[in-house]
């Protein structure tokens, strides 16, 4: 693993750029634990100070240091995206593999459920959830709900891969050798769909974080917990754009964009490295 990363780093400019971007963002978010102020407190520093030596990224109209605020926000946002991605990957994997492998009525039933999740419009639902759950709607609860709605497309994708795997010889071999469904799925099929899981995880993070920003801008999240969306929400509340407090918006945008581009580049290069096609070729033995 370490060797692979070293190779990637040496050979791919994209990987280098991606790694540097992500490392920067991770570093920034790791600094969150060292914030000299409680992240939810306001008016702890003079408001509206432009970026300077004392306040590298300036201060907000709420008297927060943008640097520390951003650091905490990045950590929270990354955590949120990662949790959504992780949980939804697990659901997508279980449903996708099971549906693709089992076929028949299991497949039909699971795909009906799957399609239902695809067709239900998410935004009004999340807003209603917010109204019902109120302050019990913590970021974790929101992440859980989003994860419950963020797997359906990818489950379909995994299902189609699983169906092709099922037709492979090695599946039959495993079946004849007396492996259970669970064993076949976990030991034989799972490794083949991991590249798909890996690349969809990135998209899923973009999606969930984007939706979090949307919800926060509309005020449907816990806006006191610093997140990228929460920062934008408060910046809007204080008309930061037109008030000339550009650093309040510019730095979060820059950071979140860096994060996404970095993650994307990593995902792309890593994907090329473990190209599923070459894996299928070698493992499938059809060529």
């Amino acid at each position, binding site marked *: 693993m370490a060797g692979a990363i070293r190779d990637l780093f040496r050979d791919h400019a994209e990987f280098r750029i991606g790694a540097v971007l992500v490392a920067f963002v991770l570093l920034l978010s790791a600094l969150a634990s060292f914030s000299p102020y409680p992240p*939810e407190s306001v*008016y702890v520093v003079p408001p509206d100070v432009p970026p300077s030596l004392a306040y590298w990224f300036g201060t907000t109209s709420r008297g927060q240091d943008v640097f520390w605020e951003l650091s905490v926000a990045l950590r929270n946002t990354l955590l949120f995206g990662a949790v959504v991605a992780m949980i939804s990957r697990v659901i997508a994997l279980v449903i996708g593999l099971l549906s693709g492998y089992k076929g028949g009525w299991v497949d039909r039933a699971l795909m009906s459920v799957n399609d239902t999740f695809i067709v239900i419009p998410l935004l009004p639902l999340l807003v209603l959830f917010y109204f019902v759950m*109120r302050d019990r709607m913590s970021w974790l609860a929101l992440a859980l709900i989003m994860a419950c709605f963020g797997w359906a497309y990818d489950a379909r994708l995994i299902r189609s891969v699983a169906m092709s795997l099922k037709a492979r010889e090695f599946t039959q071999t495993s079946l004849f050798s007396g492996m259970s469904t669970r064993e076949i799925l976990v030991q034989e099929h799972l490794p083949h769909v991991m590249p798909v899981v890996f690349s969809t995880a990135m998209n899923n993070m973009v999606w969930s974080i984007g939706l979090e920003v949307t919800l926060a801008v509309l005020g449907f999240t816990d*806006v006191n917990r610093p997140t990228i969306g929460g920062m934008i929400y408060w910046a809007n*509340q204080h*008309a930061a754009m037109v008030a000339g407090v550009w650093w309040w918006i510019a730095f979060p945008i820059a950071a979140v964009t860096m994060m996404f581009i970095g993650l994307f580049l990593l995902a792309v290069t890593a994907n090329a490295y473990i190209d599923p096609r070459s894996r299928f070729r070698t493992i499938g033995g059809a060529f």
Partner: protein
Amino acid sequence: MCCIRAMRLIASALLLLLFLSAPPSYGQGLPQDIPRKELLILENPEGTIKNAGWFNIWAINAGSQSNGLQQVALDTLWYIDPEAGLDGAWDNSLAADKPQYNSDFTEMRVNLRKGIFWSDNVEFTADDVVATVMTQIMHPGMRFSAVMASNVASVEAPDRYTVVFKLKHPNSRFHTNFTVRWGAVWILPKHVFEKVDDPLRFNFNKPISLGAYELHSYDPNGKWYIWQLRRDWDRTTLARFGKPGPKYLAYIDPGPPDKRVILQLNHELDVIHDIAPEGMFALARQSKTTRAWFKGFPYGHPDPTLPAVIFNTQNDLFKNPDVRWALALLIDIKAVVMAAYRGACTISAIGVPPTGAHPETYHQPMEEWLKSFEIDTGKRKIRPYDPTIGKQIADMLRPSMGEQIPSDPKEVARAFGMGWWKPDPQAAQELLEKEGFAKRNGAWTTPDGRLFSIRVMVEGDLRPVMTRAGTMIVQLWKQAGIDAKIDLAQGTLPTRRAAGDFDTLIGWSVETWGGHQDLSYFLDSWHSQFVAEPGKSQPLRNWQRWSSPALDKIIEEIRTVDFDDPRSIELGKEYIKLAVKEMPTIPLMAYTVFTAMDQTYWTGFPTAENPYTNPVPNWGNSRYMFVRLKPAS
């Protein structure tokens, strides 16, 4: 080769974009075919109107009210201006003079003006007033149906210009239903409604106008409404003050705050209804032509409404005045003012908004009493009032704002308010301990041993400054060891407020006429007869669900004295003292509305120096603004 083809495609797409944006005849948000010089563009704070083609204001629905309909097309008997007024705060509009009650306030007689016409050439008469009342009584579900039904025994028109109301029970304030501060019972055209089968399902489109303007056109998607000065504007009540300046009025939905600022900087929005303080500061900085109520800081117009920390007094935790007081003493009002308004607001320690006629009537006379007011913490007696807090705020702002901050004590008091409660954590602690609360490891627990948790409900971006105030208060309480949290209710706030589904909320349960010292506008609804049982819906405005026999007595006496009787001022002071002792809500400041007026095309807007009316453009009395507006040279 293919690349080149693709490039060409993109290039042509871009060209197409440029081409489309090229025709210069299209301005950005300006109406077509209307000379800009004859047009005043105002913000409709209701935003995009879902049910845009609905003008029947007497039926409840998603039609707009502040789209010009109530400001320029409808009319009613009287107006009370929150400011000085064109001709005094009181204005007889459709009525020729003040209401005449009989001695026991069971009958009200109204004389109407003559020569007032609907826009379809039908004369306005007493029949219209009678129809307004009777139509609503006959159709429960109409906007003013319940009020009329519960008050009016009969209504008659002895002649074309006189209306006599017989009331079911004595009510010295019945006329206020027909008196606009913000809105009131609008008079409907009998000759239109008598032909309608079901007035609840009638859209009143196109509306027949009784005001000086009539509907010109509107957007079916509810983004804009354009009104046009009536040819016969001189046959409306506004004609008494001269010819309105603008020939056309456009009430538009300009979108989020950023865009309001951009539009005004581009001179495409003459009057912004309200904006975040920072937006106001940005406009003041960047636009030479923008004017607000105050020429400089604090800019905004203080509304006669009083944002406060409203306790749910039916909640066990907040039943006790000592607890409420302790929480008040933990608030640093300067921090709240800075957080909410960046200092740009007027504070008030007492339950009356520090605006209009009130400072002279209530705040100044009560100052001495406040200074000597004592509370007993159980260990000692303290005098919590600090008369210098208004001045302290001004002093705090002076270094960064400089000249803009007045130094004359009177002006300081008018702009920033007078005194407030001095933060006193020690006294707060004593008060809480007196009531059995305990502080362990820096965290307060209630008498029954649970964590002392308070949710502060705010509305979110619908009321940004209140949200900010709430956030600050939460922080202050948290620092004192209370488990406080903000509770962002967004659109659920009205439902939850009515249901009593909150610990505390930042909102107002106090609002007044502004231009008149009578407090019945809100106080009557604080009578314990209206307090709902826990779990039931609370009618407005006693959101704190506070009942007090002493207050009931005050209210009952107010009901028996005349609107203009000086005795009602004394009773008002009684209420203030009671509210200070009991602290059912913690009054914070006047709700400041940052109305920004662009003088590029029009001049003569109402301001603090020339306070002939309030500038907030969604109020029914903002019509008085139009007769003073002159085209800019």
